[in-house]
């Protein structure tokens, strides 16, 4: 399947199969969640970690939902995986399509460039949070990591730069560590 086809799939799914929720409700809910985490943990690195964990738990559930809605088949290679994340995943849930860029030469790493992150609306980080490296939308990283893990891909996903830190676009780096074999979980009787 080509990138264009994925785009059509994403747009179709967004139009027909998705229940929409008020954007502001969503943005404020997420905002107050992050702020509460900041208050509870009092450490921005710990907040990043928690957001990533939450995202992971969302991702492992979400992936089935996406595949069921769109009827996509297994991706042939990591390049098409990237296209699906951007043109189907982000499109269906957030109505944005980050661009896929900066492929590494071995084809195992790429960047998602987001220039209109809806979560950033209204948000302005306090200088301290920028300094200590709070990634406000770190939940995305977890979601991608969780979703890919369910597809037998172990990945590292992290923010490289963020509009809220003063960069002109946000960049999420996705790195494929290894393809997991289908195996029985360690503590599964």
């Amino acid at each position, binding site marked *: 399947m080509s990138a264009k086809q994925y785009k059509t799939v994403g747009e179709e799914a967004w139009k027909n199969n998705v229940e929409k929720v008020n954007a502001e409700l969503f943005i*404020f809910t997420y*905002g*107050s969640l*992050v*702020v509460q985490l*900041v208050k509870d943990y009092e450490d921005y690195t710990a907040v990043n970690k928690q957001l990533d964990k939450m995202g992971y738990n969302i991702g492992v559930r979400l992936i089935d939902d996406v595949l069921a809605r769109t009827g996509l088949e297994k991706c042939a290679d990591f390049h098409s995986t990237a296209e699906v994340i951007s043109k189907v995943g982000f499109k269906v849930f957030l109505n944005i399509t980050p661009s896929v860029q900066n492929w590494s030469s071995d084809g195992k790493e790429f960047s998602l460039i987001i220039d209109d992150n809806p979560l950033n609306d*209204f*948000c*302005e*980080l*306090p200088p301290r*949070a920028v300094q200590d490296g709070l990634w406000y939308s770190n939940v995305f990283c977890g979601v991608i990591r969780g979703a890919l893990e369910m597809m037998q891909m172990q990945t590292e996903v992290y923010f490289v730069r963020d509009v809220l830190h003063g960069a002109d676009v946000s960049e999420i780096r996705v790195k494929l560590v290894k393809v997991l074999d289908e195996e029985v979980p360690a503590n599964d009787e």
Partner: protein
Amino acid sequence: MSTKFLKEGIDNVQIGMDCHREMLQPGGSHDSMLIVVMAASFYFAIVGTNDSPLYEAEFGIQREENKYLQQFVVHAALDLVDDVQFMTSGCYLKAVDRYNDWTVSAYVTPSNARFMLLHEAKPEDPIRSFFAACHELYLRTLLNPFYEANTSILSQAFDAKVHTLAKKYLI
């Protein structure tokens, strides 16, 4: 505030007025006209719902000796705002108080945050627009999850935007 200080402040105002008149003399060069335009000074403050100041700014020419007097005048006008705000249904209360050649205009948001502007003679319309634009900015600040209501507004972006608005509508 001591009466001595107040008196000093008043003297300064008088001096300010004298300068003004001199510059407004017909036949003045363009340079002095320019100074007249620049000489307008504004003091803007946002007062929270529990009467604590959230934000203050000065536009135009700033005179160090006026600083506390300006705060004092605006503070005194808050009581008048309390009286006037129930007489009208709009947010913009126009001029609520006068002090020598200064006028205090006020704007009350529905959530009872008060915008106070201390200024010299000035038509109403630009002030109304300035307040409305500031209201919009204030709303966006309130919507920021990291901002807690009724705390000082420390955001530099907010500060910069208010100054831009002041340039656009007032100065």
